[in-house]
């Protein structure tokens, strides 16, 4: 989109944050422009062009804006700035560094630099003169919060280049020249540690994208054990308000085994973002011993921030994810809530008076969501290393009805479905993931099955399937009991029901606010699942159905105490011994 002279225009119409600009030259779809409002320049993005009239969505309030105001077009799309120093930052949806803004209130048109230009980084070269390189090739690395941050040939570069020189190890700022490469026509190009990339375009600087095959441990039992997500996998969490979407995402972002965690707070509460930047600097990453905030970047477009930047926020987050993936890192990306992004699209589509699809959402909603989810994935880079983006989005279905357009579109895009159930939440059975309706398509992938068999145990999958069956049979038994009454069914039905209650209480339910129970590493998950399944295999003798419930309640209480105890601690062992005593009373 190189242009000799800048295109300009003037404001011709204003309807909320949709502005119509009359232009005097060429303009591209999705090009960025700045409206020269006297107090502050307002950033906007082209969304439709009709002859001389260009429709732009303004990323700010348009209060006080007048017809006739000058507009400058920038000749590029909405871009992010990529370089070391992104981790632990708090950005808005357009990657402005929120900490660099003055004052308590956000000021419109306050655009801040996402990077620190003064800081010196400890550079170590990887490439050397004479190397052939392409977009994404690693030239060198700097440590960023303990992570190797690879400095790459810019993603925008096409074809192959020859490395002419690379600076030697030492301290450099992001703007220092760290390498010179020569293109096929013999032109030398200086490279720094910084590059830019348009957020709505997927970064393709990798060799291949195989199907995901490795388990990504989240520390959440009902996910890892029953419906695991993979490194590079996709999942979504739909649920009515208050059923635990955000708490679940926060728990995953604390304990999942990822190198980098990017959280897009998309149109949700500001206090939830505050929670992250209050707690994460205090909490330790169980794997590295560093503070959680060091591996985390927050993109905040909370519900009171400009609506048009909501769409940008998820793309910004995804692009930062792709950048770190290209360094061979394991990225976990979370967006809460993708429904707010869809709603932002709807507001704009309505203002443009486009023909609406179901529930007034734009017709191409499914296509937009699908191509976004498709940017996640596990990749092999050109140098043979691998990296991944695991993406989990929440969905906030209107009225809690899963038949609405955003949920249905997302179902087509995501491979794991973690449906939160209102009645589970009402009875405080957290996380409220419905164990029967939820699924992980990855359990059908032979490569995932092989991985689980090799890395957990030979019969792991059988145990998982058995657990699911017991849950289902428990639900059926409960339905029968409800229809026929406690006395109207054989005692065995009560046992079936209580076996499923046992699994529910000990495996499915997990207290995210308990220091110990909040995170359950895979080893512990395996141990507990085997223990619980072992109990369901035991034969106890009961006289009445009340014996059954009384007995199982004691067993559950005991196992809950185990869940609350330090792994393999003295207490843990004591509770286990006491559990054996309880069994003895009823064992045949």
């Amino acid at each position, binding site marked *: 989109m190189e242009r000799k002279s800048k295109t300009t225009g003037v404001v011709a119409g204003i309807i909320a944050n949709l502005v119509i600009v009359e232009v005097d030259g060429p303009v591209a779809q999705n090009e960025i422009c700045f409206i020269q409002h006297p107090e502050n320049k307002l950033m906007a993005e082209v969304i439709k062009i009709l002859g001389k009239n260009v429709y732009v969505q303004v990323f700010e309030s348009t209060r006080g804006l*007048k017809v006739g105001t000058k507009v400058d077009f920038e000749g590029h799309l909405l871009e992010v700035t990529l370089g070391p120093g992104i981790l632990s930052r708090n950005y808005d949806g357009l990657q402005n560094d929120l900490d660099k803004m003055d004052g308590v209130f956000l000021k419109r048109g306050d655009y801040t630099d996402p990077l620190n230009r003064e800081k010196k980084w400890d550079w170590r070269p990887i490439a050397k003169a004479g190397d052939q390189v392409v977009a994404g090739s690693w030239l060198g690395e700097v440590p960023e919060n303990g992570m190797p941050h690879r400095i790459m040939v810019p993603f925008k570069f096409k074809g192959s280049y020859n490395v002419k020189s690379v600076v030697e190890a030492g301290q450099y700022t992001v703007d220092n020249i760290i390498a010179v490469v020569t293109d096929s026509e013999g032109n030398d190009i200086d490279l720094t540690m910084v590059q830019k990339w348009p957020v709505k375009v997927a970064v393709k600087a990798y060799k291949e994208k195989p199907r995901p095959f490795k388990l990504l441990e989240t520390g959440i039992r009902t996910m890892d054990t029953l419906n695991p997500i993979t490194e590079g996998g996709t999942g979504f969490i739909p649920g009515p308000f208050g059923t635990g979407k955000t708490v679940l995402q926060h728990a995953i972002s604390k304990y999942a085994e990822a190198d980098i965690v990017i959280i897009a707070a998309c149109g949700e509460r500001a206090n939830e973002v505050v929670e992250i930047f209050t707690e994460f600097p205090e909490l330790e990453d169980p794997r590295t011993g560093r503070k959680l905030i060091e591996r985390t970047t927050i993109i905040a477009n909370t519900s009171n921030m400009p609506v048009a930047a909501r769409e940008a926020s998820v793309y910004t987050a995804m692009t930062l994810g792709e950048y770190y993936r290209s360094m061979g890192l394991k990225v976990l990306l979370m967006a809460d809530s993708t429904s707010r992004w869809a709603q932002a699209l709807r507001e704009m589509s309505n203002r443009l008076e486009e023909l609406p699809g179901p529930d007034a959402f734009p017709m191409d909603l499914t296509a937009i969501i699908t191509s976004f989810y498709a940017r996640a994935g596990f990749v092999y880079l050109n140098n043979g290393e691998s990296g991944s983006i695991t993406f989990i989005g929440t969905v906030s279905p209107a009225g809690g009805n899963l038949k609405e357009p955003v949920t249905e579109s997302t179902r087509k895009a995501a491979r794991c479905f973690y449906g939160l159930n209102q009645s589970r939440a009402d009875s405080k059975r957290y996380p409220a993931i419905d164990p029967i309706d939820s699924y992980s398509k990855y359990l059908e992938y032979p490569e995932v099955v092989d991985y689980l068999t090799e890395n957990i145990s030979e019969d792991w999958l059988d145990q998982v399937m058995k657990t699911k069956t017991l849950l289902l049979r428990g639900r059926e038994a409960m339905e029968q009991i409800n229809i026929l009454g406690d006395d109207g069914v054989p005692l065995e039905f009560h046992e079936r029901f209580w076996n499923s209650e046992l699994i529910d209480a000990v495996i499915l339910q997990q207290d995210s606010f308990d220091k110990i129970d909040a995170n359950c590493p895979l080893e512990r998950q395996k141990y507990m699942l085997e223990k619980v399944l072992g109990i369901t295999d035991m034969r106890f003798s009961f006289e009445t159905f009340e014996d059954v419930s009384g007995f199982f309640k004691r067993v559950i*209480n005991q196992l809950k*105490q185990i869940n609350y105890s330090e792994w393999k601690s003295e207490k843990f062992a004591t509770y286990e011994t006491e559990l054996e005593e309880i069994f003895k009373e009823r064992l045949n």
Partner: protein
Amino acid sequence: METQAFQKVYTKITNLTKATITLKATDIGYDEMALVAGRMGQVVKIMGEEVVLQIFAGTEGIPTNAEVVFLGRPPQLKVGDQLAGRFFNAFGEPIDGGPEVDGRVIDTGGPSVNPVRRKQPSQLIATGIAGIDLNNSLVTGQKIPFFADPDQPYNQVMANVALRAEADKIILGGMGLSNDDYLYFKNIFDNAGALDRIVSFVNTTDDPPVERLLIPDMALSAAEYFAEEKQQKVLVLLTDMTLFADALSIVSNRMDQIPSKDSMPGSLYSDLARIYEKAVQFPHGGSITIIAVTTLNGGDITHAIPDNTGYITEGQLFLRMDSDVGKVIVDPFRSLSRLKQLVIGKQTREDHPQVMNAAIRLYADAANAKTKQDNGFDLTDYDERTLKFAKEYSEQILAVDINIDTEKMLDTTWDLFQQNFEREEVVVRQEFVDKYWKQ
């Protein structure tokens, strides 16, 4: 009023609808206010020289040659200590017969607080109502509505909460308030000797409904003044937000916008969020807490108004008539305070979270037992005990007329556990059972 000699007066209205007028005018800012035949209007659309104004009181009787004067400013409010004790309408004009307020003029509906300048809310608000303090504790800087059917005493409960909350200022935003309710608030605040801590912005059922769209911004601008500049603890009461949303749908309907669910505008979520997100805890101690009312239609929380509200606010307090005890209770199932975990067990006794959860679980068991009973099945001994527990719990804890401290709420709940259950049936961390279960 505010017309000034040098301002240009327009007298040629080209289009008139029920809610809007269109005229040719130049140099007009978006969102700008105007006086149209003495009525307040606001710019909602500009196309070249054509300017569309929304007239808050409706366009009835406005002639095409009416005088239109643009005020060159968005909605504004004069802020200062003189606001205290006063009653205003949706435009910030006194309605209590008192004098005009002196103070600094600020634009209402201003920008949001930078999230990194917020502090995590952490100060418990004690209300004495156990259904709130025990199960759904409130925290300063929180935003939470009452979900209630129109016949429930939500304004009374809200007034009680406000008076017990120890706020420096209470700001009442009344939308579609009946005259009786308006007087009720005035009296109860007066009787409590609290009038000097109260600022009210009121749109009553006698006022044009669309005017109430300005009320939350007025109330919250005043709140921001006291909370940010004066570092005060401010409590904002917004009642009834359902009537606010209804006004939104009237406007969008008159402007021919495509409605989404329940004839509400597609932007309902953003419109409500912009208001509720003004709740904030500042690091310097000032805070804005919003307690709102969202009236329901026959308890239906899937309707777009309560549904969008629930997605925005930090929980909801669901009022319900419990016919077993003949009292209005705070329903423990549908109610939620999302910020409670920041304070319970920290500013309250250590056993608070576990006791709260255990009691609600047992209350849920009682609900199952009740279903069983209704279906004509025999009840077990355990079922009978849960039913007895539920009734006592409802009377002694959930009813909205309770006024006790948290310590007492916890002790009462332990007593109820002990009177009705065995230790293992309660499922609470062993250390708490050892400590609080009386031998």
